């Protein structure tokens, strides 16, 4: 799902095209900041904080042993959290994570797949339907054909799964 994107990120990093790399993530940075701040006007400011932190990291030559997108999302999560706590969060926690994720570190880094951890509370069948629909971009008819179920049944499983996720933990 992310292979092509990760390869392009690596190419941009190796070519030193840092601004182009950050620019390519700016859409999702803005989207997630708007969501985290629930559409509030400060979202653009928080997004800018994310950009400045990423630029600061890359301009001093830091590179990562995890895909760059993982770093981007980590910094988004952190900066949004910092916004809500009005800067009372210990910045050292993000610094430590980024240092641990850098190529210079050999320490153990816990990483989970955000999609898999999100759908983990669902049944195996519900997880399969969501993977096929959102990761493999299959419609309900095709999913039904693969799973031996009618499209209507797949549709119901899909919406039941989303309803469970909606009620799930934040």
């Amino acid at each position, binding site marked *: 799902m992310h292979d092509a994107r990760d390869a392009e990120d690596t190419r941009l990093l190796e070519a030193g095209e840092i601004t182009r790399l950050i620019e390519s993530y*700016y859409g999702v940075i803005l989207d997630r900041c708007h*969501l985290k701040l629930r559409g509030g006007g400060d979202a653009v400011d928080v997004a800018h904080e994310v950009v400045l932190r990423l*630029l600061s990291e890359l301009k001093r030559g830091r590179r990562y042993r995890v895909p760059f*997108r993982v770093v981007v999302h980590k910094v988004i999560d952190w900066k949004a959290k910092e916004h809500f706590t009005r800067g009372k969060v210990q910045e050292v926690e993000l610094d430590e994570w980024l240092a641990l994720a850098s190529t210079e570190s050999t320490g153990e880094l816990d990483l989970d797949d955000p999609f898999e951890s999100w759908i983990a509370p669902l049944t195996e069948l519900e997880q399969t339907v969501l993977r096929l629909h959102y990761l493999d971009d299959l419609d309900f008819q095709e999913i039904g054909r693969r799973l031996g179920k009618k499209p209507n049944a797949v549709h119901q499983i899909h919406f039941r799964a989303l309803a469970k996720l*909606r009620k799930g933990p934040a």
Partner: protein
Amino acid sequence: MSEPTVETLFDEFATRYLRGEQPDVRDYLVRAGAESEDLARMLDRFLHAAPAREPTEEEVVLLQARLEQEPPLLLLRRRRKLTRAAVVDALVGLLGLDAAKSGKVRRYYSDLEVGVLDPRPVDGRVWEALGSVLQANVRAVAALRPEPPAPSALAYMREPTGLQAKLSMAEAAPAAQADEAPDEIDRLFTAGP
């Protein structure tokens, strides 16, 4: 007609997003109404996991404007490789204004471009005309007016900002002269949408 559920809105957004469209999360939060908290949480998890979409041109302009401390509308015009005079001439023609008053249009446009003219009261016809000249959602771009540079931003500027100088120049040459009676041009740029 019944309100769309959070599940329906999520699926619609995710499907469009994966199709390569750029659905606006803010529109979806508005549509979710009282359920927007639930939808925001779900979409945030989804966007964390999905491949990042390409930014829109308006977003790229916003990013550059923020980093370079330049007015977004000015950046957009430069991206189009247009002179200010060319934009003003096009505006005069598209809005059907008296060519003899193009100097006044130029002053208003200059103020708008450098962010000293409040874009909110600017008439929709001006945005429409500018949009066709600059080929972008100009109203959205102009709304992103520059802010004073933060110390942390200064380190990333390619060169010292000329924004302060531009603002000073614009303030020194107000578009509407005090001794002139308001006309169509004043109304277009200051009277409201």
